[in-house]
């Protein structure tokens, strides 16, 4: 139980009830489908067959799906690859984004508009697959983990959002430091960043989730199967389930593999969710009111 500030008085009983009901509805509408997903992932093939889809009532339970996924060693290895790429990528992206967002956050600074505009353009136009491949390939990055990081290291959206948060910090705070002779790096490091933990955590989360979920760059740039990230490895288990491309062009049945059971597909969903669940509390920790302003001003 946390102590609430004085201005946060308890709302009326009616208001509290209404809020409680609303929140419960929202939570249930999300939890019930998630329950189906998790239950299916732990179900036997017969239970899945019986249901003809996602399982809603517990039947035969089994760990088979998870055993299958983690037995080969391929998935475990891919987890390490993905963790590495996500960690290095997120760190790099955050540094680059924080620097650029701060560098562009002072109105009236030289060239800040054209640079900002140039960054915005990347949000609007998407380069083609082949030219991108040619660039990565001519830099010798094919089959290098850097090919999974560098091409997507800067997201215009994240940069612009972070810049907006930086700009919301009252100008007087930074100006006074500047008058005291602080360099831009000092101001950024000592003043702006401590006041922006929340947004840094959020943008870090966005980047991390982006790296964690990305698969198409790996499809293109990684030939060596030992370097495949997790999403690509997991996708292979669900290819038949995602029948997006099935039945086109008179696909012969040659070489089509066993359709994965729904349990494996759902286990994959669960596996992808777990790290995400662990990360969130660390992000949310920085959403604390009251770190701001007052202290710095004095």
């Amino acid at each position, binding site marked *: 139980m946390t102590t609430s500030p*004085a201005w946060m008085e308890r709302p009326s009983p009616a208001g509290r009830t209404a809020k409680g009901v609303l929140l419960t509805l929202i939570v249930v509408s999300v939890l019930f489908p998630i329950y189906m997903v998790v239950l299916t992932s732990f179900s036997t093939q017969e239970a899945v067959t019986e249901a003809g889809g996602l399982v809603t009532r517990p039947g035969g339970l089994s760990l088979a799906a998870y055993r299958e996924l983690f037995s080969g060693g391929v998935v475990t290895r891919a987890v390490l690859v993905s963790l590495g790429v996500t960690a290095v990528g997120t760190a790099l992206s955050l540094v680059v984004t924080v620097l650029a967002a701060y560098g562009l956050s002072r109105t009236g600074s030289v060239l800040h508009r054209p640079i900002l505009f140039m960054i*915005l353009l990347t*949000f*609007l136009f998407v380069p*083609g697959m082949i030219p991108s491949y040619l660039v990565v390939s001519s830099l010798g990055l094919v089959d290098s983990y850097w090919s999974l990081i560098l091409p997507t290291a800067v997201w215009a959206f994240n940069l612009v959002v972070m810049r907006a948060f930086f*700009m919301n910090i009252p100008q007087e705070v930074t100006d006074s430091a500047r008058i005291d002779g602080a360099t831009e790096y000092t101001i950024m490091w000592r003043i702006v960043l401590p006041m922006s933990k929340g947004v840094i955590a959020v943008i870090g*989360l966005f980047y991390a989730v982006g790296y964690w979920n990305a698969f198409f760059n790996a499809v293109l740039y990684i030939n060596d199967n030992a370097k495949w990230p997790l999403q690509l490895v997991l996708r292979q288990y669900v290819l038949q389930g995602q029948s997006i491309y099935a039945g086109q062009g008179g696909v012969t049945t040659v070489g089509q593999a066993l359709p994965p059971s729904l349990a494996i597909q759902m286990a994959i*969903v669960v596996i992808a969710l777990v790290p995400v669940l662990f990360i969130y509390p660390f992000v*949310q920790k920085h959403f604390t009111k009251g770190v701001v302003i007052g202290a710095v001003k004095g």
Partner: protein
Amino acid sequence: MPSSRSKTGPAGDLTSPAGTGTTNDVPKRPVRASRKNAGRKNRSPLRARLRRDWPLLMMTLPAIALLVIFYYVPILGSVIAFQDYSPYVGIADSPWVGFSNFQWLMLDASFWDATINTLTIMVFQLIFYFPIPIMLAILLDSIMNRRVRLVVQSIVYMPHFFSWVLVVTLFQQMFGGAGLLSQVLRDNGFQGVDLMTNPDTFILLVTAETIWKDAGWGTIIFLAALAAINPHLYEAAAVDGATRWQRMLHITLPGLRPVIILLLILRLGDALNVGFEQFFLQRDAVGRDAAEVLDTFVYWRTLLTGEWSYGAAAGLVKGIVGLILIVIANKVAHRFGEQGIYKKS
């Protein structure tokens, strides 16, 4: 509102004197325009400002370098929109065809159908989806118990990590002709209903799916913004006897406003993207008239024909429309005294 809806460009610059606080920088030659404006404002010679600002410029260098190499170099490849391009022949040797790919695009009735669908869905979701993460964030933020807040938030943001295939399947299992709802109805002697195949309500269906999948995720950024609001303001307001509603109207919403407006403008820039897979999957169910959006149109149009140039032309059109919308939205924001994406200087 004054007639600032005229096309961007020099005319716009002239009609907005520096003093009024409206700036028009985005047009064709952004570098010059902004220098001009900035110069006007700061009045110090360029060299002095360079000396002052070079650390800031250096800070943007890594990002610029990455974008130049991995974005601006490959984007040059978009010139294939003006070619009859074959990847195996290469840009250098593919014949140039001028604007004919664009002309084809414009003459294609299906392109317009898809564009209208896309814009309709976008506007609809702007009204019925966009505010939901904001409201949800305020609701979540008002949960006093920190642990409950954490748990609830962790739950509502999970669906973001579900693929569209799974989201559609889940909706099917609830509301499809073989879903729970139908089964319950049938068991009680009623007709089953299928909410998944009605073209007239398709826009509601996709919006509901989007809300379920992404509203929780969308709250994160607003929660961060809520956390950045100065608590002293609430304190002072409480002392002045402001009610909860008044505090929300006068402190919370204004505190969120810059972020809301920023996201709104960015969403407009992305106006012609409403997603691909969600529509791809449900396209046959309700028909092309209801479910064809630009991305699926381009996909189907180029899938079997390998018309790279056509796809590139469609991509450029999308970007230009986004650019125009962003510029307009930003100008509107400035009129209302907001900072928008780039602050008025």
